[in-house]
C-alpha cells in the first residue's frame, strides 16, 4: 500500500481523477457546452487540483471499486430512512406538551480507523435519531443523546454506533 501511494504513476492517476471530478462539478454548475465556458472550466479545475490537491483524502481513488460502491448504494437509502426517522422523532418531542427528553453526553467506541470513515460515522450519527457528535478523541466519540438509554460505553456503542459501523467498514476499510 505504502509503495503504491508513493509512486508517481499513482499520484498522476489521483490528480487526473480529482481533475475530472472538479470538471464534472463545473459542468453541472454552468450547465452549458459553450466552448469558452469549457476552456475556462478546464483552467479552473486544473488550478484547483494544482493548488489544493493536498486537501483531498489521498487514497480516495482507491475507494472506487464495485464492491465498495455497492455498499455505498446500500448505505444511502438506509441513511435517508434514519434521517426521516430522526425528524419524526424530533417533531414528536418538540410538539409534545411535556417535552419528553432525558439528555446527556455518553461516550462510545468505534472500530473504524481512517479519518474519512470516522467523518462519515460522526456525520451519520449527528443526522440520526436523538444523537449529536460533540467530539472525537482517538477511537472514542462523545455523543450528546437526547434520550439516554444506556450510560456505559458498551451499551451506548451497541445502540448508536453498530448499525452504521458494519456498513461503513465495508465501504471505507
Amino acid at each position, binding site marked *: 500500500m505504502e509503495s503504491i501511494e508513493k509512486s508517481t504513476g499513482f499520484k498522476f492517476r489521483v490528480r487526473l481523477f480529482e481533475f475530472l471530478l472538479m470538471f464534472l462539478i463545473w459542468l453541472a*454548475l454552468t*450547465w452549458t457546452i459553450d466552448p469558452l465556458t469549457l476552456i475556462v472550466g478546464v483552467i479552473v479545475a486544473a488550478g484547483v487540483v494544482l493548488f489544493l490537491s493536498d486537501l483531498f483524502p489521498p487514497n480516495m481513488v482507491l475507494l472506487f471499486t464495485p464492491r465498495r460502491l455497492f455498499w455505498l448504494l446500500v448505505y444511502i437509502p438506509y441513511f435517508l430512512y434514519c434521517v426521516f426517522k430522526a*425528524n419524526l422523532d*424530533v*417533531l414528536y418531542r418538540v410538539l409534545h406538551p411535556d417535552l419528553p*427528553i*432525558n439528555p*446527556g453526553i455518553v461516550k462510545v467506541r468505534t472500530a473504524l480507523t481512517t479519518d474519512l470513515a470516522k467523518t462519515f460515522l460522526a456525520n451519520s450519527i449527528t443526522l440520526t435519531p*436523538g444523537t449529536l457528535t460533540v467530539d472525537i478523541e482517538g477511537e472514542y466519540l462523545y455523543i*450528546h443523546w437526547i434520550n439516554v438509554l444506556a450510560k456505559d460505553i458498551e451499551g451506548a456503542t451497541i445502540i448508536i454506533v453498530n448499525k452504521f459501523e458494519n456498513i461503513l467498514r465495508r465501504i471505507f476499510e
Partner: protein
Amino acid sequence: MTETIGFILIVCGLIFDFSGCLGLVRLPDVYNRLQSSTKCVTLGTCLILLGAVFYNGINAVGIKAILCIWFIFMTSPTAAHAISRASHKAGYKLWKGSACDKYLEDRQGSLKKEDS
C-alpha cells in the same frame, strides 16, 4: 404532475423547518437546541430544494439545487459538531435534568493530570 409533487415536497420541508424552529425555542439548553435545529433544518431545507428540482425539472436550476442538497448534508452536521464542541469547551453546562456528562468527566480528568 411534477409541479404538484414539487409543491408537496416544499410543504413537507416547511413543516420540518417549522418544527426545527419550534425546538429552538422550546428545548432547554444549547445542545438540545442544536439537535432539533440540525436534524430538522437539514431535512427541511433539502426537501424544499428537492421540491424546487421537481418544479423546475433537471436543468441549470435543478442541478444547482441537487449540489446544494449534497453540500448541506455534508456541512450541517459538521457545523453542529463544531458549535457543540466549542460551547462545551467554553463552559456551557448541560441542562440540570441531564442524565450524565461523560465528556465533562473525561475533560476534568485530563485537566487534573496536567496540573499534577
